């Protein structure tokens, strides 16, 4: 086991712990903080996978913008009162999750993708390569995504507007 693998196992352990914290924490604000930690850890994993640009975007968009939105709504609504911990139902849910993970792992690891990564070039995963791919092969999805974001903005304003 070399240094990269030790680092991966540390990151993976922290990511699993913070994800469990998101799901099993009764206080909403604590869940949100654990989610911020999980998103940062995923961003670091992206960096180890030769995806620096996507990793930076992950921090900016997810850990920055989306989590601020979540925290703002939590503060705005101020949901008082902790949720009840119903042991039977939570145990049933945890069992279902274990079954799902046990079903997913063999499916994912059975594929015939190359097990040894292609050696990355200097530019792989940087802004230049990402932009070239985005504005040549994926122009149409890119434009559709911009329309989607516009619709989301208009929809959010209409939904959250106070009724007259």
């Amino acid at each position, binding site marked *: 086991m*070399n240094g*990269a*693998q030790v680092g991966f196992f540390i990151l993976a352990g922290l*990511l*699993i712990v913070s*994800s469990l914290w*998101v*799901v099993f924490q009764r206080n*909403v604000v604590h869940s*949100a903080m654990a*989610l911020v930690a*999980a998103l940062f850890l*995923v961003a670091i*994993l*992206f960096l180890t*996978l030769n*995806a620096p640009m*996507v990793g930076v*975007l*992950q921090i900016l*968009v*997810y850990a920055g913008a*989306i989590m601020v*939105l*979540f925290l703002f*709504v*939590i503060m*705005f*609504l101020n*949901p008082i009162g902790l*949720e*009840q911990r119903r042991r039977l139902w*939570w145990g049933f*849910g*945890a069992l279902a*999750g274990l079954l*799902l*993970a046990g079903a997913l*792992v063999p499916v*994912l*690891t059975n594929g015939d*993708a*190359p*097990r040894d*990564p*292609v050696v*990355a070039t200097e530019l792989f*995963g940087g802004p230049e390569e*990402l932009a070239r*791919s*985005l504005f040549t092969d994926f122009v149409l*999805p*890119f434009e559709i*995504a911009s329309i*989607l974001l516009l619709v*989301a903005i208009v*929809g*959010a304003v209409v*939904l*959250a507007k106070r009724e007259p």
Partner: protein
Amino acid sequence: MVPLDYYLILSAIIFAIGVVGVLIRRNLIIVLMSIELMLNAVNLTFIAFANSLGSMDGQVIVFFVMAVAAAEAVIGLAIVISVFRHRQSLDPQEMQLLKW
């Protein structure tokens, strides 16, 4: 070098944790956060495959997933706010107006 399978197993575990969150929690905001967790697990799979296949396509798709996730969070939280205004509660069990 960390093998591809390790990343795939990790993202399967994170996805399953997100599914458990959607199943057991009775708080709309935490349900939305669990969905974000599931989207991140899938993003991790995309990036791992992009790295192992030496192709940029996976990273571009992650970019689009982030755009969709941002739109989903905005609309979802707006719906949460308007539900809270009407019901004074975040419990999805109480949203049963259409239930027979």
